[in-house]
């Protein structure tokens, strides 16, 4: 259960989820997205990426998970984001992590609109970077 109150201005407690190579393999299998840039360093670097990156949809699915946890599974009406920076996932035990925070922008006409911030933190570098641009979700309240 969540004790989040969805009212304008409310800050939603950040959620951090780990992302490892194993997460990507599992997500590839479940979603059907077998793009090799999500599992092969060789192919990822050959197309100019820094290495294997997470599926944008995996990151978005983690955001949906955070929203579901904040809102006790409220009905999502609109959900969108730009994939502005890749989530690079190193081939080690820790991988990386994605942290999602949110602010309720408005509650009107039965819909709560939440503006989100989604950052990825490298386990080795410790550096955080925003990975989604303008991520926003509207849920029915």
């Amino acid at each position, binding site marked *: 259960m969540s004790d989040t109150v969805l009212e304008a201005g409310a800050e939603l407690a950040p959620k951090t989820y780990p992302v490892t190579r194993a997460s990507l393999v599992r997500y590839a299998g479940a979603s059907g997205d077998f793009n090799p*840039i999500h599992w092969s360093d060789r192919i990822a670097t050959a197309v100019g990426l820094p290495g294997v990156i997470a599926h*944008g949809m995996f990151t978005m699915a983690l955001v949906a*998970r955070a929203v579901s946890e904040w809102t006790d599974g409220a009905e*999502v009406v609109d959900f969108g984001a730009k*994939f502005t920076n890749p989530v690079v996932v190193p081939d080690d035990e820790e991988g990386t992590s994605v942290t999602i925070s949110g602010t309720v922008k408005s509650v009107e006409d039965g819909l709560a609109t939440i503006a989100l911030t989604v950052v990825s933190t490298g386990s080795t570098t410790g550096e955080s970077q925003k990975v989604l641009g303008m991520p926003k979700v509207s849920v029915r309240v």
Partner: protein
Amino acid sequence: MAVDGSLVGRAFPPTRPYRVTDEKVRELAAATGMSWESGDRVPATFPIVLAFDAMNAFLEDVEVELSRIVHGEQKFSYVRPIAPGDVLTATLSVASLRQIGGNDIIGTVSEITDESGALVCTTSATLVHRAAEVA
């Protein structure tokens, strides 16, 4: 290879009807660390399973390699929530096409409809087709 500009406005054939099952929803939810029980709400990104099928068929048709595609943007706009038991179909059309720095920026829209033909969700994706490096 640049993608042909005449694609804009073209609709591709609908995907094969897809039956949403508890097992599939649970599997996809588990892949993001969620435990999902029958009766719980289907995660909002679920339609990507169908939209991805539609995208694969589209890429094959225009002879673009999946490994050269990076996701630029994704949106979901729901008419009603998806529930297990739904039989859904995705129909992809190309909404826009532009070139930036040798990359094709392809805007696609997939309409997810149910067995009765009613619209359940519209999902739009921007696909970045990365140009091959010039040697």
